């Protein structure tokens, strides 16, 4: 008889007692542990390198990892552990160039520059880095705890109360929410979602003839996940960045001032002072992260603004204000943007709906390897036989806490040594990333066709960025398109071909009304200027 605790224990054992790589003093070290460590260190490096970010490292690593570990269920935890390590490492790495060079390593670290760089200029760079690390790890750990508690319960609720029509309506609600929430323009979000769905439906369908293939061999096989996702997300971003570099090629870059790192430590008094800011931002970031599609940049902005209001009320006159080198500003930002990452996995693990790019790559890994389909069916606590997917899910939770442990112990030290990465010239780095990504896709699919597809999707991604259309709804809609159609077909059949199956059921109808209301309300708000 299997109970909940047995499943949790099996998940922990899967990480710690997986295939052994070597042993230290007779203590076996599993390959999964090593992969989490490697992913975490790589994540810090890419996070600290402006122009690179977690998704780039994930995109390049995935085919290599799959080649190493193969397409067996044993590969799931090492590969996904590596990706989780990257996700967590990149989150703290982004603060390094933000503090030392006034250049955010990742977009969500922009607010960190506001107080981090002034602190560094005053000779307190090391303290600023310590604050960023402490706040980031605290927020991240809090978010992971919420994930572990909420994801199984949400999945159980979905399985218990939602039937096929409600699940179809929930997918539509998620898509409209993502369209409305990402990028600041509901209209552009809808366009991005529509394009993603359209691409997902090319060359697929229930009929013998692959629809929308125009009779061509290339389209009749459908568009695979790799070229579409990596093209739009990575190659499109590289094209956009290169164009920016080219536009400013004649601007003589000022030499980056050498900042004195300093040696000041974070005292217990400092920690006590920071905790209220970290706590509030962690809650905000976790709430924002649990909603699919809303990124860490918004969480950082909200966390910073809330922290600023509090600071204005209670700060002593001799303390620096927000924007002038207040360590509370760094803490509020970093706790908020880091607490998004764990919570972002709530929709993907409990509903199968990816909410951010890291979740997209976890789905890509699960899809490539097989044996694990993120969604409510994962959390079936079967008692008579072991549900292997549930063991993997608890293994992933364990991997997240292992990464957090690494973050608390060695993360700060490694992070503080990464200042050098901000000096790597982008115009040299980006072309290498471009070829590396294309090579990574090719070695997985071994058809030149996928290179052409990826380049074409790269152009699409560039065009979308040019028109201020966020590519994230495209990617999420592309991933969910097949699932939406399959669920709708099943729901239609199960309801006896009822054309109003989305409206006859109260929960499904409520989801549909919400879908329309979200778009309506988001369209009325003034779009963000770009």
């Amino acid at each position: 008889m299997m109970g909940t605790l047995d499943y949790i224990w099996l998940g922990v054992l899967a990480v710690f007692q997986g295939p052994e790589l070597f042993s230290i003093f007779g203590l076996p070290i599993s390959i999964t542990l090593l992969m989490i460590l490697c992913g975490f260190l790589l994540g810090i490096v890419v996070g600290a390198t402006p122009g690179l970010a977690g998704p780039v490292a994930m995109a390049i690593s995935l085919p290599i990892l799959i080649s190493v570990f193969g397409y067996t269920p044993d590969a799931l935890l090492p590969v996904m552990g590596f990706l989780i390590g990257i996700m967590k490492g990149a989150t703290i790495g982004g603060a390094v160039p933000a503090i030392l060079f006034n250049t955010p390593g990742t977009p969500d670290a922009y607010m960190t520059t506001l107080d981090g760089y002034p602190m560094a200029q005053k000779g307190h760079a090391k303290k600023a880095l310590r604050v960023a690390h402490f706040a980031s790890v605290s927020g991240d750990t809090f978010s992971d705890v919420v994930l572990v508690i909420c994801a199984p319960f949400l999945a159980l609720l979905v399985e218990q109360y939602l039937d096929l029509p409600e699940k179809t309506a929930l997918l539509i609600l998620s898509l409209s929410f993502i369209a409305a929430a990402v990028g600041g323009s509901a209209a552009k979000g809808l366009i991005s979602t529509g394009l993603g769905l359209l691409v997902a439906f090319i060359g697929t369908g229930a009929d013998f003839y692959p629809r929308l293939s125009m009779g061509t061999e290339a389209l009749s096989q459908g568009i695979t996940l790799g070229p579409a996702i990596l093209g739009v997300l990575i190659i499109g971003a590289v094209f956009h960045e290169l164009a920016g570099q080219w536009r400013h090629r004649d601007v003589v870059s000022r030499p980056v001032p050498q900042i004195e790192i300093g040696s000041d430590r974070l005292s217990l008094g400092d920690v006590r002072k920071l905790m209220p800011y970290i706590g509030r931002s962690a809650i905000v970031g976790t709430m924002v992260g649990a909603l699919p599609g809303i990124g860490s940049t918004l969480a950082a902005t909200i966390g910073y603004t809330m922290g600023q209001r509090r600071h204005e009320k209670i700060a002593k006159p001799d303390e620096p204000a927000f924007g002038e080198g207040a360590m509370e500003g760094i803490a509020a930002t970093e706790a908020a943007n880091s607490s998004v990452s764990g919570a972002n996995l709530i929709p993907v693990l409990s509903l199968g709906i990816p909410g951010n790019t890291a979740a997209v790559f976890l789905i890509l890994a699960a899809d490539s390897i097989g044996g694990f389909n993120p969604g409510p069916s994962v959390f079936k606590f079967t008692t008579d036989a072991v549900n292997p997917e549930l063991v993997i899910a608890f293994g992933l939770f364990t991997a997240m806490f292992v990464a957090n442990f690494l973050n608390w112990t060695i993360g700060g030290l490694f992070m503080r040594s990464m200042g050098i990465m901000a000096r790597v010239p982008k115009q040299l780095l980006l072309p290498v990333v471009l070829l590396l990504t294309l090579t990574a896709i090719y070695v997985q699919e071994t058809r030149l066709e996928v290179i052409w597809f990826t380049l074409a999707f790269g152009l699409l991604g560039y065009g979308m960025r040019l028109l201020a259309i966020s590519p994230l709804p495209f990617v999420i809609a592309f991933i969910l398109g097949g699932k939406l159609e399959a669920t709708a077909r099943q729901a239609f059949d199960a309801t006896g071909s009822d054309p109003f199956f989305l409206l006859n059921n109260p929960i499904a109808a409520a989801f549909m009304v919400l879908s329309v209301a979200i778009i309506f309300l988001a369209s009325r708000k003034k779009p963000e200027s770009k």
Partner: protein
Amino acid sequence: MKKPLFQNTNVMTGLFFTALALLLLFVWIPLDSDTGLIEKVRRQVAIGDALAPTVAALFLLIGGGLLMLLEGKSDTPPAIDAASVKFVARIFAMLVLSFVLMRYAGPLAVQVVNAIQGNDLEYRLLRDTAPWKWLGYVLGGTLAICGTISLTEGRFSLRALVVALLAIAAMIAIFDLPFDDLLLPPNGDL
């Protein structure tokens, strides 16, 4: 001062996607799907293959329409700089050229060697043998990286060539040397 490509990009974008949606709804989907929105299979009504793309087209139609109506008069539509678009087109063309070179360099080299030495070698049989298997990747990859750096910097430099060669060597070391089952481009196609 950069020259904008369009005066109001939001209106143009909305118009484009509305037109695309109408094209999808009235031309592409009806002509390129074998079943309609719904179909009757053995006296049972089921969802047809045209329904899902129609939903996608409706997303585009509503998005395009809203963009024109609500954001057409936005004070800050995204500015599109024609020169940047041309630059990306040049990068794209150069990448296409690089991959064409990558595809044909190896087989062409084998033909040249055959013509000179009178051999009867086939690239297909050599595609997993060094140095043949690296020829296309090194030439095409170097052109891709060095060309992209040179276009971005506005000049060719020895530094760009060195970075390209080092990066290619590193990629061969990552993808090819440790794995017997991985094939670098273009060897999986040949």
